[in-house]
């Protein structure tokens, strides 16, 4: 008897634990207890469950009961990939590359067939990298929760094959041995092979990158010899299993030898190679030759030949072995583009219009002839028209006029732009339809095309992108946007209607974190921006990824949605993290060049001589201490003037707060970078950094240090030696506020950089010192023309001694040199010992620096004109702007220096060379005797000296 039509008295699932939450099942299933069993509804129920994507199979069975039917759904859940790993590979290829080659994606449904295909695809990549005998097997392991499956591929790569002598076909024009040599595949000097008893010459191992590089080198070699159309293709890589070698089979067609020259104007071959597309594309056809005309014309226009015309001819030899291309140039008169003027402009100011233009009038810094061409003018006209149209001036026109012989000068060219703005179309009304009432306010805030605002299609496109972006980031993956425009009766207004179809909303069910071995789950949990129940947002997923990468302890962080295609109300987000190697080793070498030289044991050269100090750095770091994302490191630096060991422990994002980080450090430092003494310092400190806003940081610091000076190195009056050579223990509590609003910390063109540092060294735990210390610094950057920057800085420091004991010598301010005043060698500003002339530091300093930064050659080499002024003073009350030094004991005046420098841009910042001249560098009294002479009071050995007015500096990074 049919069970259909009977009332359902029970509805159960087998197994009871289902992939879909019970509550969601209860709400969404068409059948309920009490309903009459209906065939169509039962089928619909199965279809709906299956459409969630979480089931492999569903069987509905019924059992007749006296009062109805007991309905049971037997299900088999689908599993999804939660972790994909590859073990056993020998790079290249790396494990990550093999995972990519597998085409398996995190969160996708587990499919046995797909694994087999993945293994085959990995094999292809392995063979391409020389592993012809590799085997791959895989293991799967189901997890207890959320239907997750881990897949692990185990690779046994075998031995990597080596190249064998390539087989070369085609019209090569060169000997095979020469071509083979270019590829880089032979290893002509293999000590490894020789030590094993083989020949000195052998072949490199095969890798995909090496094969491609070899082909590229062959192509480049041909191009260098003038065979612009040469082709080199890899036909096959044939493996010999007996010898485990691979024979590449290449087809090379040299093509004709091509010479390219110009007539009518001389252009260097290097310039032709840079400018002409036939060299860049390594091909010759009519289209590229024609494009070359435009490129050469642009080149000459850049040189000031605004009317340059170029044509070309090609001739080939009768045997096709060579081809000559001649570009004929008629340069015309050399001109100078002097100015741009606009007329008819009302809505926008001149600056707004001109900043959209690529035409550039001539200037002293930069292009001396200006930048002008008809194509640039056309481009600029379009840009200005677009500016007007995107602001509602639908019919705006820009009519350019080129004026030759501007202001009576025959070689000057100017451009007049007549702007016809036309009528501005405004939005009179905007209707928003289809948006949930709860979201209306947020969605409305995104719209730019409001009533009273200019109407334009570009603004509508922005609105569409903003609205759809909002929906996609708030869990509406299927949202659709449409717009209707109705012109107003007066022709100057439009009514807009935005129609939104929100579609279904999807939420995050949970975040499944995999791959953690050492890291504590709580550390990751604190950084998740997507929580269960939140709308599924792509931006939240990306933000989570960013926050985890910021920890610096993961090499990869992948996030994916489990079962992306399934129709479910809530979905799991799968997070697979790969922890980075925990230990890193840093090695560095460098050098300091400047007036840092001079004997450490005599009184010669108190102001330093030209010196060179090499330095080496070694550091070891351990990441992810205790699984908390903390870092411990030990760094050692050795140079001729400084030896330092620093141990530090950093806890970033302290207590789960992105804006807090805590660090502890222990330092041992022995340095003689101040010529007066060699000091030794032991210091322990703790610092808490608090990010206040995007460009603002506060640091709170407690430091305890013991500083001692090697008395034998102290080059001051003997009477002062007992005072300054006593070891001093100092504790300083300080705070620093840093405001950094520069556009680029390495190469700033605008913005500000301010710091305020204030510290107190109380006598609670120190041996007799009690002082406060304040340092202020302010730098600003202003762009005055394209690539021309004026940068200025002011720094002020004040040490206020609150004790009767002198402030320890190493705690005083020592300044001067390449970051404060380039009229001084390093740390040579300020008061000096009355007898020996060595710097003593001071209790206050004031420095001003101004630089004009400009390009010299392109964007790589820049120049600087600078003026520095300032000094270190023995007290705040003695601070002075006086230019002249009163006598050889007076150092409380303002020392000036002017000079120039060069900056060579590198990826890690500019390398800089500065040459400074100080017209009023300090004169002082030095000592030509020995320490014994000094102790015996031989004052006749004093000699007048002067800090060398010429100083030079070589360093990395901008001055400020």
């Amino acid at each position, binding site marked *: 008897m049919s069970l259909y039509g009977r009332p359902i008295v029970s509805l159960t699932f087998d197994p009871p634990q289902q992939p879909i939450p019970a509550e969601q099942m209860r709400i969404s299933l068409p059948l309920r207890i009490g309903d009459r069993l209906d065939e169509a509804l039962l089928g619909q129920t199965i279809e709906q469950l299956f459409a969630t*994507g979480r089931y492999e199979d569903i069987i509905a069975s019924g059992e007749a009961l006296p009062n109805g039917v007991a309905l049971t759904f037997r299900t*088999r859940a689908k599993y999804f990939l939660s972790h994909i790993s590859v073990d056993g590979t020998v790079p290249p290829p790396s494990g990550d590359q093999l995972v990519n080659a597998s085409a398996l994606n995190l969160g996708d449904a587990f499919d046995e067939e797909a694994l087999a295909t993945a293994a085959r695809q990995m094999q292809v990549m392995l063979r391409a990298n020389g592993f012809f005998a590799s085997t791959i097997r895989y293991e799967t392991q189901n997890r207890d929760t959320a239907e997750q499956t881990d897949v692990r591929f185990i690779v046994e790569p075998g031995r990597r094959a080596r190249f064998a002598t390539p087989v070369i076909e085609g019209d090569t024009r060169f000997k095979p041995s020469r071509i083979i040599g270019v590829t880089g595949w032979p290893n002509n000097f293999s000590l490894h092979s020789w030590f094993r008893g083989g020949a000195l010459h052998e072949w490199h191992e095969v890798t995909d990158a090496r094969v491609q590089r070899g082909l590229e080198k062959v192509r480049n070699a041909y191009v260098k010899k003038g065979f612009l159309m040469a082709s080199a293709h890899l036909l096959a890589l044939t493996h010999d299993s007996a010898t485990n070698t691979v024979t590449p089979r290449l087809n090379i067609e040299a093509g004709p030898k091509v010479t390219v020259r110009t007539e009518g104007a001389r252009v260097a071959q290097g310039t032709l190679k840079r400018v002409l597309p036939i060299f860049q594309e390594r091909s010759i056809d009519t289209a590229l030759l024609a494009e070359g005309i435009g490129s050469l014309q642009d080149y000459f226009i850049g040189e000031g030949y605004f009317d340059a015309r170029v044509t070309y001819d090609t001739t080939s030899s009768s045997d096709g072995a060579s081809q000559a291309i001649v570009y004929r140039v008629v340069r015309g008169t050399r001109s100078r583009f002097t100015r741009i003027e606009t007329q008819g402009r009302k809505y926008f100011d001149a600056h707004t219009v001109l900043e959209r233009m690529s035409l550039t009038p001539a200037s002293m810094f930069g292009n001396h002839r200006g930048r002008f061409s008809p194509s640039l003018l056309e481009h600029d006209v379009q840009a200005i028209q677009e500016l007007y149209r995107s602001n509602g001036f639908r019919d705006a026109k820009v009519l350019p006029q080129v004026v030759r012989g501007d202001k009576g000068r025959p070689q000057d060219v100017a451009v007049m732009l007549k702007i016809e703005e036309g009528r501005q179309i405004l939005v009179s009304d905007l209707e928003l339809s289809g948006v949930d009432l709860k979201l209306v306010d947020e969605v409305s805030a995104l719209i730019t095309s409001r009533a009273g605002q200019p109407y334009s299609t570009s603004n509508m496109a922005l609105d569409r992108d903003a609205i759809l972006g909002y929906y996609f980031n708030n869990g509406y993956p299927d949202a659709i946007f449409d717009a209707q425009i109705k012109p107003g009766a007066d022709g100057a207004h439009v009514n807009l209607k935005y129609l939104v179809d929100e579609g279904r909303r999807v939420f995050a069910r949970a975040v499944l974190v995999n791959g953690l071995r050492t890291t504590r789950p709580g550390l990751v949990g604190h950084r998740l921006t997507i929580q269960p129940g939140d709308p599924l947002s792509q931006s939240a997923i990306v933000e989570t990824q960013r926050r985890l990468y910021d920890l610096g302890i993961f090499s990869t962080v992948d996030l994916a949605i489990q079962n992306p295609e399934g129709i479910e109300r809530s979905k799991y987000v799968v997070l697979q993290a790969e922890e980075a190697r925990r230990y890193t080793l840093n090695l560095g070498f460098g050098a300091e060049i400047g007036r840092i030289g001079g004997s450490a044991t005599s009184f010669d050269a108190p102001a330093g001589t030209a010196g060179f100090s090499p330095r080496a750095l070694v550091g070891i770091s351990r990441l992810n201490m205790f699984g908390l994302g903390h870092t411990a490191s030990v760094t050692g630096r050795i140079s001729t003037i400084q030896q330092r060991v620093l141990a530090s422990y950093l806890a970033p994002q302290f207590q789960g707060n992105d804006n807090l980080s805590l660090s502890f450090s222990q330092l041992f430092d022995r340095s003689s970078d101040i010529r007066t003494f060699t000091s030794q310092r032991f210091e322990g400190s703790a610092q808490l950094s608090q990010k206040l806003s995007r460009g603002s940081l506060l640091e709170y610091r407690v430091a305890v240090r013991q500083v001692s000076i090697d008395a034998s190195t102290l080059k001051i009056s003997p009477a002062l030696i007992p005072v300054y050579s006593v070891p001093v223990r100092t504790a300083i509590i300080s705070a620093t506020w840093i405001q950094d609003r520069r556009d680029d910390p390495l190469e700033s063109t605008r913005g500000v950089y301010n710091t305020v540092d204030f510290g107190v060294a109380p006598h609670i735990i120190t041996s007799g010192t009690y002082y406060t210390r304040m340092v202020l610094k302010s730098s600003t950057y202003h762009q005055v023309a394209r690539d021309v920057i004026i940068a200025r800085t002011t720094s002020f420091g004040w040490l206020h001694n609150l004790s009767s004991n002198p402030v320890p010598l190493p705690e005083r301010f020592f300044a001067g040199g390449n970051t404060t005043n380039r009229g001084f060698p390093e740390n040579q500003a300020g008061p000096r010992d009355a007898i020996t002339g060595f710097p003593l530091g001071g209790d206050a300093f004031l420095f001003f620096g101004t630089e004009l930064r400009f390009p010299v050659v392109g964007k790589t080499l820049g120049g600087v004109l600078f003026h520095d002024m300032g000094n270190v003073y023995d007290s705040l009350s003695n601070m002075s702007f006086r230019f002249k030094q009163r006598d050889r004991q007076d150092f409380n005046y303002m020392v000036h220096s002017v000079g120039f420098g060069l900056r060579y841009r590198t990826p890690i910042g500019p390398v800089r060379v500065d040459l400074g001249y100080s017209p009023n560098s300090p004169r002082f009294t030095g000592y030509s005797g020995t320490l014994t002479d000094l102790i015996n009071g031989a004052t006749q050995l004093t000699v007048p000296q002067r800090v060398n007015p010429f100083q030079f500096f070589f360093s990395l990074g901008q001055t400020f």
Partner: protein
Amino acid sequence: MRAAIACFVLLASLAQGETLDRVSARVGKDAITDSALRRHLRMEAFFARATADLTSASRRKAAERLIDQILIRRELELNRFAPPAARDVEAQIGLLMKSRQEDATALGASLEHYGFSLDDLRAEILYQIMLLRFVEFRFSAGILVADSEIETAYRQEVVSEAQQRNVPPPTAEDARESIVKLLTYRKTNAALEQWLAQARQQVKIQVFEEAFR
């Protein structure tokens, strides 16, 4: 994996109760249930005025047809193919009644015999109209029949058949229109088959053979 499936099927069969319905095939995340197969076969039987053949073999063949149907429905949705107007559907129902010589009451009784309502019939006819229009738009419109093909078909089919029946064949000119229709129909079918074959490659299709045992 196969062990898991076998285990699942065995447990399901050993459990108390009769199997009412189950997934018989899938196209991506769209399930084809056993009830959908039976329904399809009953609808075919209704149009053919025959008894529904619900044997395993018949249901297995129906599964392949429904797989094709799902692929086509997906394409219709993707291209936002407009459904026919209600009057077109009613017109077809009218033609159906005329061909079956049934009035509305008799049609209703006939439908009820096969387990359907009038709305079910409307839905089926709506789909069939959309299918025809889709095939016409997507495949027929671009089909060209060459003169040589017409000539070959005339000789090999029309003349040959007439000879077999011992009747004089129609002239090539008279037969041209019907030959063109026939060849267009065949080419359209071939194009549709080719498209379906390609569409099947792009989505995971699985038939649960145990559902037909």
